[in-house]
């Protein structure tokens, strides 16, 4: 939730403006049918923000259901292996359901309940957001429909099965390349068709306003905790924070509380796929340009005629041709940096963390680690890097095995 200090006029944390914009990015580019719903959602969110009972309820679930706070772990062996800056890991993979996704889902489901909605739809890429959504729907006895690209259904089978167990209906989407973008389109179509009872539970800091702001607020618990934890451990703020970017929610969550701490470098790691210039990438900021999709203006992978291109990444959770609008803005004003990491680099990082720390990371955050592997050795030993370990890698073992030539 937005803290009062974040609305100071000179703060980088005060966005978005009334139109839901971060600089020129963001907005509410939805069909008229949805516009009244989007406005109603914003109103409901403002009311919840102003209600201490909402925050209390959320804190209760964060503590006793999600398992927060998540630890900040000093990765000693990894640090030694890299031979430079100290590397800390924010252990979001320890949350219930195994990723940061539940932070956002918990907040939104409480809001949906306040709004009296009885049916939840969501899009999912890696399936982590789908699992988190199906989980809270089970917890509160709500009907749950998850849209998932057919390609992703194939490469994230364990999560599909989990969603089924949790009582959700998983609808594979065959349009396009059958990945997250297509699932998002289909979820929006469902929402338009079921406006009366349905809440669209967006999984990342994208979509029409107020989603980017709201999801960021719920995920900001990550950065808020890191700030306390690192000061306790080191007596100061970190030098660098690194997070992987799909739509950008785990990154926004860990960045946002640090936006006004200008000495803290913020690095978002996009999936470069087969390479930034391979044409098979998901690096929207590095290789995209401004456009409008899924309700917001942001950097998008698109051709010169404004047709959206298919993204590519080994990681289903990063396989999206866009990025949350606040990141686009942070890039343009130079507050955060965005870099690319390839499929192969992520696979190598995945194995390194597993061997040095006994933590199997999700392929998504393995991208973040791959960048840490590049910068840590170049940094003095008294510097501090915090990496957001956004999820655990159990869901990815089949993908990784097949890349290692192992048949499970």
């Amino acid at each position: 939730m937005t803290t009062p200090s974040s609305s100071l006029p000179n703060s980088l944390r005060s966005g978005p403006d009334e139109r839901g914009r971060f600089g020129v990015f963001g907005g509410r580019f939805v069909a008229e049918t949805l516009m009244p719903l989007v406005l109603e959602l914003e109103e409901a969110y403002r009311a919840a923000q102003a209600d201490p009972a909402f925050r209390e309820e959320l804190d209760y679930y964060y503590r006793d259901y999600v398992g927060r706070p998540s630890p900040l772990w000093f990765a000693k062996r990894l640090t030694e292996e890299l031979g430079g800056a100290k590397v800390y890991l924010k252990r979001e993979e320890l949350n219930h359901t195994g990723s940061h996704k539940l932070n956002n889902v918990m907040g939104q489901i409480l809001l949906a309940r306040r709004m009296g909605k009885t049916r939840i739809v969501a899009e999912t890429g890696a399936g982590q957001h789908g699992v988190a959504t199906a989980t809270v729907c089970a917890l509160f006895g709500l009907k749950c429909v998850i849209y998932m690209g057919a390609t992703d259904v194939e490469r994230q089978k364990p999560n599909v099965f989990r969603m089924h167990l949790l009582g959700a209906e998983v609808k594979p989407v065959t349009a396009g390349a059958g990945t997250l973008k297509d699932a998002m389109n289909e979820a929006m179509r469902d929402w338009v068709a079921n406006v009366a009872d349905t809440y669209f539970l967006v999984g990342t800091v994208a979509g029409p306003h107020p989603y980017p702001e709201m999801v960021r607020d719920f995920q900001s618990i990550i950065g808020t905790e890191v700030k306390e934890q690192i000061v306790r451990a080191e007596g100061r703020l970190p030098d660098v924070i690194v997070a992987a970017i799909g739509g950008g929610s785990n990154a926004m969550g860990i960045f946002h509380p640090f936006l006004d701490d200008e000495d803290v470098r913020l690095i978002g790691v996009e999936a470069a796929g087969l390479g930034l210039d391979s044409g098979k990438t998901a690096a929207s900021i590095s290789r995209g340009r401004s456009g409008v999709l899924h309700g917001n203006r942001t950097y998008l992978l698109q051709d010169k005629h404004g047709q959206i291109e298919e993204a590519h990444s080994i990681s289903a959770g990063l396989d999206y041709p866009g990025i949350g609008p606040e990141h686009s803005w942070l890039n343009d004003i130079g507050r955060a940096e965005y870099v690319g990491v390839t499929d192969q680099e992520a696979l190598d990082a995945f194995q390194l963390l597993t061997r040095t720390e006994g933590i199997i990371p999700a392929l998504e955050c393995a991208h973040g680690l791959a960048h840490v592997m590049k910068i840590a050795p170049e940094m003095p030993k008294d510097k501090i890097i915090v990496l957001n370990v956004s999820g655990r890698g159990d869901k990815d073992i089949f993908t990784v095995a097949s890349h290692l030539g192992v048949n499970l």
Partner: protein
Amino acid sequence: MSRIKARFEALKKEGRGALIPYLQAFDPDYETSLELLKAMPAAGADLIEIGVPFSDPSADGPTIQAAALRGLKAGATLGGVLEMVRSFRETDAETPIILMGYLNPIDSYGPAEFCFDAVQAGVDGIIVVDMPTEEADLLDSHAREAGLDIISLVAPTTSRTRLFHVLKDASGFVYYVSITGITGTGSASQAQLEEALPKIREATDLPVAIGFGISTPEQAWTASRIGDAAVVASALIKTMAGTLSEGKATDKTLPAVLEQLMALSAAVRA
């Protein structure tokens, strides 16, 4: 006077509503869709809506999604669609042409350039599905300067207060999305239309076209009476799709679509 205004005034004198068929540009190829476009007025089209193919048509159902995909495969671009309209205008100076699509191709083309080029090509109005009133300033001034009508959409979810807000500066005509849903999936009942239309008319003097879910001649007739125009899209595209062989046009393609269009237009004229 704009072609849209002139056409609605003429129809008012005739005492009937308009039929607005929809086709997706470049579906299944440039030539076929241009030929269809050129043949539509004689088959009873009063105004014509041309869908601009987009990779992510999130407000469209399976039928139009597939049409957009075929169009893109055939090389559709916004520039190519304007080219198509230019060619149409060589043989028809009067039938209003409205482009319907999503914002990103226009954004990519450049809003000012697009409005200017569209009017030059002979386009009269545009419907941008994912550009609500709140975001319309992106195109508004350019459109006004160029003389292009931005057609406002209203929906069953649009409240009375919001109707006034949305239709404050509306031009051309108003498009009533008659169901809460995507294209080609359901239809509003006569009773629902009869309840909705007076509320819209309170907020505007512009003609009101009714679209989404109109497929039969009876539905077209009803909508053109309760509103001022009936838009038929998915039903025509479904017919076209049924004539294709491996995604390509056949000699049945044009006759089948035009025959259906004639039946619809006969109903609207009855």
